[in-house]
């Protein structure tokens, strides 16, 4: 069953700025879908349309089976939303805000209080629930915002850059909670600039650029499209004349700097690492450093658009293995 179905979605702002230009996508029930793209690509505009905050100027979007333009109230009953800036009243306590959210979503008072009690504990804010939100850290505010989005037990959860600006431990806490929610059956649509976030969380990734869907698929499939993993081989100084020949047995070789650094595409994947090491050893070549480099979603974006994703805080490559000797 489809939780989100989008066909030719468009949004043109006054002045002719086309932020979203005909997006098609479908998100299955119980899926985590990451919408990845650089700043200004159209991620937030798309989320605002899917959550009824912004009216599409073209195309059609169904969320939980309801048209976002024609059945906005029905959509709102089925979705939970945590937007980029956690919009929280600093004068209210976490628990008061939870109860306010419960009331806004039509829960009876006793039920709202029960859910608020449970959710502040679930997002790890039980110890601070009676403190004013103005005293919360950024991570606490995001967790509260996430909890508030869950108060009416939505079918589909939209998270707009849920971990932007958070420290690694707060980011990990949000990821854990997203996984737990998904395990319980909630469909999650999240936007992010972080490759690692999409890689870690998403069943499928859609990459948007300049308002258009650049590419879509599972992280593994997308990366496989870009190519095989390659091995960065750094040899110790010395007679390395025959190194290129040895490495060429395993795949395409790109010689690097000063005759000590080589890149070899592993035709046999990661399973070729041990044979490469043995071959180099048998050829009397001493390895200073060996890194297995897997293709990343940034490589996928680069291959599709010719540009790197901005705002990414990762290193740009996933080093699955790093061997150093000497």
């Amino acid at each position, binding site marked *: 069953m489809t939780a989100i179905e989008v066909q030719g979605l468009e949004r043109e702002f006054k002045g002719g700025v086309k932020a979203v230009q005909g997006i098609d996508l479908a998100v299955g029930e119980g899926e985590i879908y990451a919408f990845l793209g650089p700043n200004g690509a159209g991620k937030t505009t798309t989320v605002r349309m899917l959550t*009824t905050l*912004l*009216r599409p100027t073209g195309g059609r979007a169904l969320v939980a089976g309801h048209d976002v333009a024609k059945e906005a109230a029905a959509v709102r009953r089925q979705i939970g939303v945590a937007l980029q800036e956690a919009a929280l*009243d600093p004068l209210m306590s976490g628990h008061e805000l939870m109860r306010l959210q419960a009331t806004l979503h039509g829960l*009876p008072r006793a039920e709202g209080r029960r859910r608020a009690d449970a959710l502040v504990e679930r997002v790890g804010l039980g110890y601070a629930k009676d403190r004013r939100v103005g005293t919360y850290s950024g991570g606490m505010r995001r967790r509260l915002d996430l909890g508030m989005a869950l108060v009416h037990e939505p079918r589909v959860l939209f998270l707009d850059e849920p971990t932007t600006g958070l420290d690694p431990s707060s980011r990990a806490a949000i990821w854990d909670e997203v996984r737990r929610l998904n395990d319980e059956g909630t469909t999650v649509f999240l936007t992010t600039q972080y490759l690692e976030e999409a890689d870690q969380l998403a069943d499928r990734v859609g990459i948007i650029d300049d308002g258009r869907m650049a590419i879509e698929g599972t992280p593994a499939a997308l990366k496989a499209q870009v190519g095989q993993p390659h091995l960065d081989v750094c040899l110790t100084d010395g007679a390395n004349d025959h190194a290129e020949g040895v490495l060429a047995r395993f795949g395409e070789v790109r010689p690097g700097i000063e005759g000590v650094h080589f890149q070899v595409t592993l035709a046999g994947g990661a399973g070729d690492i041990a044979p490469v090491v043995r071959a180099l050893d048998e050829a009397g070549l001493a390895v200073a450093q060996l890194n297995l480099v897997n293709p990343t979603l940034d490589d996928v974006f680069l291959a599709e658009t010719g540009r790197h994703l901005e705002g990414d805080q990762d290193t740009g490559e996933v080093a699955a293995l790093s061997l150093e000797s000497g």
Partner: protein
Amino acid sequence: MSALALELSTIGVLMRRALNEILRVPGAAIPGILAPSLFMLGLTGAFGALTELTGFSTESYISFILPVSLMQAAGFAGAATGVNTVRDIELGWFDRLYLAPTPRPALLAGIVLSAGFRALLPMTAVLAIGLLLGAHWPGVPGLLIAILLALTFSAVSASWTVGLALRFRTQAAAPLMQASMFIAVLFTTSYAPLELLTGWLQTVASINPVTQVVEGVRQGFVEGVSFAGTWPALVVLAVLLGLTFAFALRGLATTGR
């Protein structure tokens, strides 16, 4: 939860939030008390002798001007609701309200009625200062009518300024919100009876519907309440509230278009 219960709960929860703001940041009410109080004291000092002119229905200028200060206090409290709405839009809080499945009129009613809470504090302060400085006691009916009319005026002001907030969506619109309320009250019979006004001000005051409201609030302080002195104010306020509420509701409905 039934639809009516949901709407009432929404209104209640938004009014409670406004009450929170008043109780947790009491200092924010000071400008709303100071401005109309200083206006009342200053005008009484400068123009107190005007009541010796034929045409004034009272010999006490502070009794004449106190109702205007009550209206200003109510109008500015309503305008503060508009300014706060812009702040909520800019901070993203308004998105939270907009994402709720609650009917839009209930959301708006909660915001508009919360202006009443904001108005009560400055109105009480202005009334106390005026009475302490010698304004006539209007009697319980006169006081209740004055409070009812002024609070309704604050709701009109809130609806108008929330409508502006939803259209401009920026704090830059705040002066327009405050100025429109100031002008609406000023260009009436606020300083002197209609017969004593001259030129364009007399013309404007005679067609400005807020004049009826000022006279309705004022009646108990200067000559006693009557049905004839009350119903024009009620009709004007009902019409203004209907128009401004529709204006704000239209702004809410077109949000995101």
